């Protein structure tokens, strides 16, 4: 029965949370869109991908119920997935980003 506490808590009044997260996601989209038309040098990409990552994290934690997940294995799978994606992109960059001759 102990596992129930997490889901019970998320059931109590989650609608306000869901609409707040939705509003934050829409605000993030608007900021991303407007920021793309401002000259920020290399930080244009940083801002765009930073906001995208915040938005994705909000979706995973609150819409996909990972924050309140009683089962720790789900959190492990999520972290492992992100780790292997970063491994794919990161190790690829260690090659392509360090080729002064190409």
């Amino acid at each position, binding site marked *: 029965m102990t*596992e*129930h506490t997490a*889901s019970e808590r998320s*059931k109590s009044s*989650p*609608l306000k949370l*869901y*609409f707040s*997260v*939705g509003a934050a*996601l*829409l605000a993030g*989209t*608007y900021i*991303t*869109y407007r920021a*793309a*038309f*401002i*000259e*920020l040098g290399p930080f*244009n*990409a940083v801002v*765009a*991908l930073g*906001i*995208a990552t915040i*938005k*994705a994290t909000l*979706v*995973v934690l*609150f*819409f*996909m*119920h990972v924050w309140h*997940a*009683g*089962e720790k*294995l*789900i959190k492990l*799978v*999520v972290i*492992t*997935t992100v780790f*292997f*994606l970063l491994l*794919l*992109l990161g190790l*690829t*960059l260690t090659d*392509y*980003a360090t080729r002064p001759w*190409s």
Partner: protein
Amino acid sequence: MIGLHHEEEQHPELLHHFAEPQQQRDAASLGMWAFLATEVMFFGGLFCAYLIYRRWYFGDFGAASKSIDATLGAINTAVLICSSVTVVVAVWAAQTARKTLLVAMLAVTMLFGLTFLGIKAVEYTQKFEEHHVPGPSFSFDHVPIPRHPGEYANPRHAEIFFALYFVMTGLHALHMVVGLGIFSWLFYMAWKRRFTPEWYTPIEIGGLYWHFVDIVWIYLFPLLYLIDRHP
């Protein structure tokens, strides 16, 4: 005897190898997350290809990206976010046995999904008319590279951007079509009152799938529509 008594009491949808409904729901969610992990690596390969070519053909990608309607992309992002909100409300409705709200939220979600695909179709039509679809009729001549006066994009390099654009948004749109199929089935099941607060697994894991497709779009939007837009 204790076991027998327990079996009589349990919910009909609770399979005998699970102790309680919560454990059964967690197992289903875990399985879905394992599938989504494979999906992340599936799209991850394409994002990796994008990363490599964006670095190689930096200006050409900027020129090609600028030819896409960023406003349509932004509207579609908002449409998908709204659909994710309706999905999470649908899951809550299933958890709290609100049948009318559940059916309504599933219907609205599908409407948002169809709106997304409709806007996507308008966008693709523009690209076809402009001959920006990779292939024999591809044309991208004398398009200036952003912030490099007098320099023009190499059409062969721009074609790679459009190949990635069509494969990534096309694969994403295919996921949307599959999602609409899943949600039609969920809608039918909800209409037939098949879901209870103890058993709404299809709503939960169908929702996980929908949110995943939303997350892919959250990254596709800035990477394909918004690069090198500033003056």
